[in-house]
């Protein structure tokens, strides 16, 4: 054990930061703004390409029109994603210098590779969006594919780092410094990476799909049910409806991985204090005094979910000292919210898929569309709740079992001022995004023939009325 005064002399020794909580809030806010936009970066290019693909196959210009209009939305959201992502990389240094100084060389490679993914996305999104009417239809379609691929590789690279923070490996600690660093093993040899990647990648499609679908479901309830709206609804809704049930299976895999690698986090999901065999899950309720109050118990379910064995032994919070436990209620409520919303979304999806399989058409009940309107915002709630689950569940560690968050924080003053300015700027950003999306949506729909020379044709009884309402 090093003496305290020796520790203080080291350049990146822990500092006494009065505003640690504000620093964490600032980082969390930046994530919460960035993550929903990332979902559009992951999934929206795929939606646009699907529409363009349908146009190339059928020649129906309505699909091209939607693809072209949506690509403007895609570009605007990408621009916002670029800047909010840049802020996150700045904040790693501004708020957590000790974390970066100590471990940057272990996980940094993930971000270096991510920069290339980011480059490709920026380059081809520009070629795609500015290339309408300027490239041959085939070249234009092909220029969109790297954007979809970069959405995947970008998620992969960023999540290598998050997975490493949750399940660190690929280095040893010698005298307070990392040694014997094996960056590839740290990032890609980590079993914890894969479920996080798949869970988040699918979440991207669910969030972007349900949010987009909810916009058109709202229009459907208002009587906008023309060919344009129908085609625009089907693509995001179909993908989200197929992804939502799959996400439950992937979530099950994720929970098993957490049980294996982060037993304390799993205990916090349920609020399990004592190590038990055949542990129960409690729905709802509140963790207080080492137990769940007022929850509805489902016997043996936790053991079953975590280990696929109803009698399995599940480690409780008591296994680690109180100072090494995450804030149980935050994690637990976030986890239950995510799971609960996940099942609601899967239920909405099941209705859609059932009607398709039985009748080969869209559902006609207004209740389905009302549910869809709610599903969009709910999917964002689940997304944020999921990240709260994993990130707060990792606390008090920034690097699980290696570096505590308070050891990582900056020694600079003025965090509250920075936090306040960021809140203001982000409020402005959100207002601007809402404003531009409404503006883009209100632009009159002009079905262009496109390079294949298809005559404009707008059918659908609701069309003229919808023009007026827009």
């Amino acid at each position, binding site marked *: 054990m090093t003496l305290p005064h020796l520790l203080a002399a080291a*350049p990146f020794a822990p500092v006494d930061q009065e505003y640690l909580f504000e620093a964490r809030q600032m980082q969390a806010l930046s994530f919460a703004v960035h993550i929903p936009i990332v979902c559009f970066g992951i999934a929206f290019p795929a939606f646009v390409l699907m529409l363009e693909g349908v146009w190339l196959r059928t020649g129906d210009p309505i699909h091209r029109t939607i693809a072209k209009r949506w690509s403007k939305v895609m570009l605007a959201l990408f621009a916002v994603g670029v*800047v909010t992502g840049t*802020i996150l990389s700045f904040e790693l240094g501004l708020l957590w210098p000790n974390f970066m100084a100590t471990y940057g060389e272990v996980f940094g490679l993930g971000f*270096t590779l991510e920069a290339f993914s980011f480059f490709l996305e920026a380059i081809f999104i520009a070629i795609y969006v500015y290339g309408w*009417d300027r490239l041959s239809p085939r070249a234009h379609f092909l220029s969109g594919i790297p954007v979809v691929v970069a959405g995947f590789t970008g998620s992969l690279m960023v999540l290598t780092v998050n997975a490493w923070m949750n399940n660190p490996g690929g280095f040893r600690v010698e005298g307070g410094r990392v040694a014997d660093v094996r960056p590839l093993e740290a990032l890609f040899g980590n079993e914890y990476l894969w479920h996080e990647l798949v869970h988040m990648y699918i979440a991207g499609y669910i969030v972007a799909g349900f949010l987009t679908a909810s916009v058109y479901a709202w229009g459907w309830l208002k009587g906008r049910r023309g060919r344009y709206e129908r085609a625009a609804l089907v693509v995001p809704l179909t993908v989200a409806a*197929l992804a939502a049930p799959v996400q439950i299976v992937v979530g099950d895999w994720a929970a098993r991985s957490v049980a294996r690698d982060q037993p304390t986090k799993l205990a916090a999901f349920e609020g399990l204090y004592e190590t038990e065999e055949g542990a129960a899950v409690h729905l709802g309720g509140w963790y207080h005094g080492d137990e769940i109050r007022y929850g509805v118990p489902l016997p043996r379910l936790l053991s079953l979910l975590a280990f696929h064995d109803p009698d399995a032994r599940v480690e409780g919070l008591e296994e680690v000292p109180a100072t090494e436990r995450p804030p149980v209620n935050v994690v637990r409520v976030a986890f239950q919210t995510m799971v609960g919303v996940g099942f609601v979304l899967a239920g909405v999806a099941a209705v859609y898929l059932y009607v398709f399989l039985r009748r080969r058409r869209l559902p006609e009940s207004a209740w389905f569309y009302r549910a869809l309107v709610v599903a969009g915002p709910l999917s964002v709630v689940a997304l944020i709740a999921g990240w709260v689950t994993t990130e707060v569940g990792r606390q008090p560690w920034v690097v699980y079992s290696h570096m505590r968050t308070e050891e990582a924080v900056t020694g600079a003053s003025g965090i509250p001022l*920075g936090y306040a300015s960021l809140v203001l700027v982000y409020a402005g950003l959100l207002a601007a995004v809402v404003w531009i999306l409404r503006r*883009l949506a209100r632009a009159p729909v002009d079905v262009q023939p496109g390079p294949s020379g298809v005559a404009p044709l707008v059918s659908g009884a609701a069309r003229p009325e919808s023009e007026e309402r827009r």
Partner: protein
Amino acid sequence: MTLAEAPLLLMLVGLAAYAVLGGADFGAAFWQLGARGEQGAWLREHAYRAMGPVWEANHVWLVFVLVICWTAYPQSFASIFSTLTIPLFIAALGVILRGTAYAVHAGTAREIERRAIDSVFSLSSILTPFALGTAVGAIASGRVPVGNARGDLVTSWLNPTSIATGVLAVATGAYIAAVYLAGDARRAGDDELTAAFRRRALAAGLATGTVALCALAVVAADAGRVGERLLEWPALAAVAASAAAGLLTLEFVRRERFEPARYGASAAVASVVLGWALAQRPELLPGLTVEQAAAGRPTLIATVVGVAVGGLVLVPSLAILFGLVLRGRFDKDVGSAKAARRRHPTPQRRISLLGLALVLGAVGLPLVLVFDGGALLAAGVVSLLAFVAVASLVIVSALAPPGATENHPGNDASRT
């Protein structure tokens, strides 16, 4: 050059690219600031249009520099960001405001909206390079000690060298932008706009040269070790090369030869970055040489190899983008005449795709539920993802709104 210096060289390439390309984007916004009236609107539109396809890619160079810094020289990165918290946070806010303003400018309809958005855009485009420039000045003048926020939070970046560097960053951006925009206007065949930006390029060139000379004097007096070494071989050679390239560019602009001017201006700015690096060598921060600052060997090798492999994809992609931009392919509708080849969907194919989707789902589900790792779990996950993709295609084709397809005249396009 040693392995420890290799990532630094990559960072310098990134920094030069950002100073030139990102700087040009900042500078384009600078020229929008003073533009008023009808000619102003036209000038602003030209600047937005020129930036449109490239600014995101140009911005990524900044991220590129940061990520290599924190991977290869983690302690330096942490020292710089903790001491220079204020200017870097200002730069970060500037980046947000700028990107947001860019994202929404396309939606502006009324003059008052346009005015407001353009002002935010221009002001943040001046603030950001200034703040980043002060940070560079802080590092160059040895005001960032090693450690967590060990330097002075204010005087580290509010000092003669920092301010001179900040002003120089804004000025070089404006200069490069004017040269580029003049070239773009020429390519678009707009003589009046070409003349307007030619005037601006000449004025900005002279102004930037003056600022650079003043900055050199300030840095020589204030920046200590780096200041002295900037006036010695080899850094002085880079400074002289920058001056020569700057003068040559002015002559090209005067003769309206904008293509060589484009490269001359870029070389002038890149040489400044090179000169700083040569003067700074071998210390990154006071008392911390590059060798001491560098991460372990495996990390350095992985970084260099990673960048090399990434470069294999990046360089051709950038070539495609800049090729399309510089050849003017995005300027106007070329109106591709080729008809999209259509294949009518066949019902059998759809049914077999549905079958495939169901098989993928039926295979993937049990694999993911049963296995906790290994190849079988991976196969299950891939099957489930493929199930979502294939089933989406099936359902989307089946539910695509009917009609319109019949009216598709195969080769109508030859008439347009």
